[in-house]
C-alpha cells in the first residue's frame, strides 16, 4: 500500500486519489504545538496515520538546518522542556511562538542522540505518548541513524528496548514498529548477502516478539538525484524486508525510496511511503539545510519508473513513441491532450517555479496505483514488478536511442540497477 509522506501541508496536491491508504507525518514538518492542534478529519488519507519521531535527524546542524531544527527541537524527545509549549491564547500564532523561542530551541539542540539510559527512557516514552495522543494506527519507536558499520547495533537496540518498555508502561495496544534508519554509507561496497550489519539488525528485531515489525528508511547520503542508484543499498532493503517478513512473520514499512517502494512491496513490505517533492521521495540529511529554491514540475512516467524532463525530453519522446510512456492520471490527462494536439505545455504543466499541483497529483496517483500491487498474491506481485522493471530498462534504452540522455530531469540510470537488485533478491530468496 502507498502512504503519503505528509509534510507541513496535509492537503494532497492536484487531483490525487482520495483513496490513498494512509499517511506518515514527519516530526520535522511543524512544531509540536501546531501538529497536536491539526484537525486530521479533513484529510481522508490521514484516517490511517503514522507519526515518525525522526530521532535519526539528531545530528542536524542547527546553524544550517534552522527551520527543521526549530520544529524538531519542539518535540520532547529532542529537547525536553527547552521552551514553553505553544499556547494559542498566549502566543496567538505559531509564528509568534517561533519568533519568541527559536533561538532558545536552536541553542538547546543536542546535535547528537542522548546516551544516558534515563534520558533515553524518557525520550522514548515521550515519543510513544505523542503518537497515542495523535491517534496513530501504529507506534514508530524512535531510533538513531546507523552510520557506523559495526556488528554491534547496541545503541539502536537500547532505543528499541526503551521504546518497548515505554509501550508496556503506557499499555499500548496497537502494533509497534522499530525504526531502522540506516545510512547508505554503511551499505555500499559490502556484499549485502554477507553484510554482518544486516544480519545483526534482522537478528535483533526478529528476536523481539513485542515488535510488530520495522519502519525502514535508508539515508541516501551518497545520492545526488531523487532516486537510489546503489544496488547494494537497494538489495539491503529487500533483504531486510525478506528476513523480517518471510523469515520472522513481521511487518515491514519502507519510506523514502520513491516508487522503488513497489519493488519493496513485492519483497513483502506492506506499506511504502513517498510523495512528489524530493524531500518526500528521499531522505538525505543535507536536504534539511535551509534552501530557498522552489520546486519545478516533473513528469513521472510509470513505464519508465522515473521522471522525464518537461522542457524538451517529453516532447521528443512523444514524437517518437506517442503516448506509450504516458499514463492517463487525472492530472496527467491535460498533458497528454496537449501533446496530442500540439498545444504543449498546458498551463498546469508549464515548467515554472512552484507550478507543481498537477505534477504532484499525477505522481501520487501513480504511487497509489503502484500501491495496489500489495493486494496481489506473492507470485503475482513478483511477476508484475519483474515485468514493470524489465519494461523500464527497455524504455531507457529506447529513449537513449533517440538521443535523450540522462539528466537531473530525465532519469535513465537507475532502472537497470533496480532490476538487478530485484533479481538478486529473488535469487537469494529463491523466489
Amino acid at each position, binding site marked *: 500500500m502507498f502512504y503519503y509522506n505528509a509534510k507541513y501541508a496535509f492537503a494532497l496536491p492536484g487531483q490525487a486519489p482520495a483513496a490513498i491508504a494512509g499517511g506518515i507525518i514527519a516530526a520535522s514538518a511543524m512544531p509540536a504545538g501546531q501538529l497536536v492542534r491539526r484537525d486530521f478529519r479533513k484529510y481522508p488519507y490521514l484516517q490511517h496515520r503514522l507519526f515518525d519521531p525522526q530521532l535519526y535527524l539528531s545530528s542536524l546542524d542547527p546553524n544550517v538546518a534552522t527551520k527543521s531544527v526549530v520544529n524538531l527541537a519542539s518535540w520532547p524527545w529532542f529537547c525536553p522542556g527547552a521552551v514553553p509549549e505553544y499556547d494559542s491564547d498566549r502566543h496567538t500564532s505559531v509564528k509568534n511562538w517561533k519568533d519568541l523561542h527559536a533561538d532558545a530551541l536552536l541553542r538547546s539542540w543536542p546535535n547528537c542522540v542522548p546516551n544516558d539510559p534515563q534520558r533515553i527512557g524518557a525520550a522514548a516514552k515521550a515519543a510513544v505518548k505523542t503518537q497515542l495522543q495523535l491517534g496513530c494506527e501504529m507506534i514508530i519507536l524512535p531510533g538513531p541513524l546507523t552510520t557506523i558499520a559495526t556488528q554491534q*547495533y547496541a545503541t539502536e*537496540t537500547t532505543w528499541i528496548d526503551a521504546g518497548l518498555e515505554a509501550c508496556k508502561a503506557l499499555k499500548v495496544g496497537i502494533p509497534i514498529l522499530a525504526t531502522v534508519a540506516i545510512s547508505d554509507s554503511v551499505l555500499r561496497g559490502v556484499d549485502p548477502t554477507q553484510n554482518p550489519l544486516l*544480519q545483526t539488525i534482522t537478528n535483533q528485531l*526478529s*528476536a523481539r516478539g513485542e515488535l510488530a515489525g520495522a519502519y525502514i528508511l535508508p539515508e541516501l547520503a551518497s545520492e545526488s538525484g531523487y532516486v537510489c542508484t546503489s544496488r547494494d543499498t537497494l538489495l539491503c532493503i529487500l533483504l531486510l524486508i525478506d*528476513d523480517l517478513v518471510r523469515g520472522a512473520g513481521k511487518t515491514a514499512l519502507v519510506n523514502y525510496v520513491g516508487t522503488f517502494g513497489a519493488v519493496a512491496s513485492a519483497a513483502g513490505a506492506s506499506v511504502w511511503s513517498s510523495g512528489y517533492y524530493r524531500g518526500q521521495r528521499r531522505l538525505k540529511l543535507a536536504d534539511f539545510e535551509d534552501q530557498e529554491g522552489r520546486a519545478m514540475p516533473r513528469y513521472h512516467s510509470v513505464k519508465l519508473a522515473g521522471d522525464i524532463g518537461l522542457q524538451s525530453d517529453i516532447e521528443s519522446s512523444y514524437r517518437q513513441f506517442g503516448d506509450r510512456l504516458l499514463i492517463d492520471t487525472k492530472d496527467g490527462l491535460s498533458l497528454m491532450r496537449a501533446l496530442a494536439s500540439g498545444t504543449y505545455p498546458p498551463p498546469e504543466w508549464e515548467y515554472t517555479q512552484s507550478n507543481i499541483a498537477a505534477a504532484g497529483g499525477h505522481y501520487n496517483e501513480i504511487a497509489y496505483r503502484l500501491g495496489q500491487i500489495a493486494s496481489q498474491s506473492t507470485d503475482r506481485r513478483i511477476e508484475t514488478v519483474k515485468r514493470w522493471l524489465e519494461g523500464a530498462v527497455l524504455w531507457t534504452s529506447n529513449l537513449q536511442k533517440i538521443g535523450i540522455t540522462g539528466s537531473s530531469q530525465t532519469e535513465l540510470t537507475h532502472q537497470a540497477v533496480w532490476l538487478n537488485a530485484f533479481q538478486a533478491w529473488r535469487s537469494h530468496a529463491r523466489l
Partner: protein
Amino acid sequence: MGGPRQRRGLFFRDSILENRVFTQATFPLSEANTALGPRFQVGALIRGGGQGVVYRGSRTSAPDGRQVRDDCAIKYYFDSSQDERVEREIRALEGFRHPNLASIVEHGHINLSGESVRYVAWEYIDGDPLDAKLRVGPVTANTVACIGRDVARAIDHIWSKRIVHRDVAPKNMMLRRGDLEAILIDLGIARHLSESPLTAPGLTWGTYGYLSPEQCRAEPNLTCHSDVFSLGVSLQEALVGRHPTRGDQNILVSSPPKTSDLAPSSPAGLAEIIDLMLSLRAPFRPLPAALVIRFADLAASL
C-alpha cells in the same frame, strides 16, 4: 595453558580461561569450605572444568540468620577479571523464579589464598542431566517435546531480561518427573565470565557442537535465536541418541542435517519444528514463545 583453541577453522573458547588462579586439580576445597562458614555443608563434586567447579551442598541458614534448608549446587568461579559484569548479571538473575530455570540461592565472595573467589549457590535440581541419559540411548519423542517445551519456556523467560544463555546443550538440561519435565541450568553466568569481546575479538563462548552460526561468527550481541539453534541441536541429539553431526560444528552451521533423515520414524510435526530451529538465518527460527506452544501441543498428542 588456557588459550583459545582452533578446531577446523573455528576459533572457540571451550571452558578455558586465561590468567586463572586455580584449576580443578589445585582448587583448595577444604579452604573454600572453611571460608564459606558453617551455614553451608559442601558435599561431592558434581562437575569441574577450566571455568570453575561445582559441588553438591546444602545451606542451613540465610545470611540474615533465618533458618533454611536449601539443597544447592555450589559453584566456585576461577576468574575474577569479569567480576563486575557477573555481578550485574547475577542481580538480574536473582529475581528469577521460574519452574524451568535453576534459581540463585545465594552468592558472594570468599578469600582463598589471598584471591577473591566468587561463589554462587544454585538451587539443586534433583534429576538427571540429558547428556547422561543420552549415553544410554535416545529418549522418546514425547520426552523430546517436553524438553523442547520447557527449555524454550526458560529461554523465553531469560530473553525477556535480554539475557542469552549461550550454552544450551544436553549437559545443561536436567530431566525429572519421569523425564517429562526439563530444567535449564547454569544460565547466563558463564558467558560473562568468559566473554571479553573488547580484549578477545573473534572468540566466542559455548560448547563446540552446539554453537549457533552467530556464535561461530563471534557476534557480540546474541539473541534468543542463538539459544533456539542450540536447543534444536540438543533436541535432534535427544531424538537420535547421538550428536546429529557427530560433533562436527562446521556442518551444523553450513548445512544442518534434516531431522527426518536422522530419525525417519520421528513424528513429522516434531521433525518439522526442530528443522526450523536449525535455520541458518536467525530470523527464520521460531521465537521461544512460539516454540512453547508448538511443543506443548506435540507433548499432549504424542
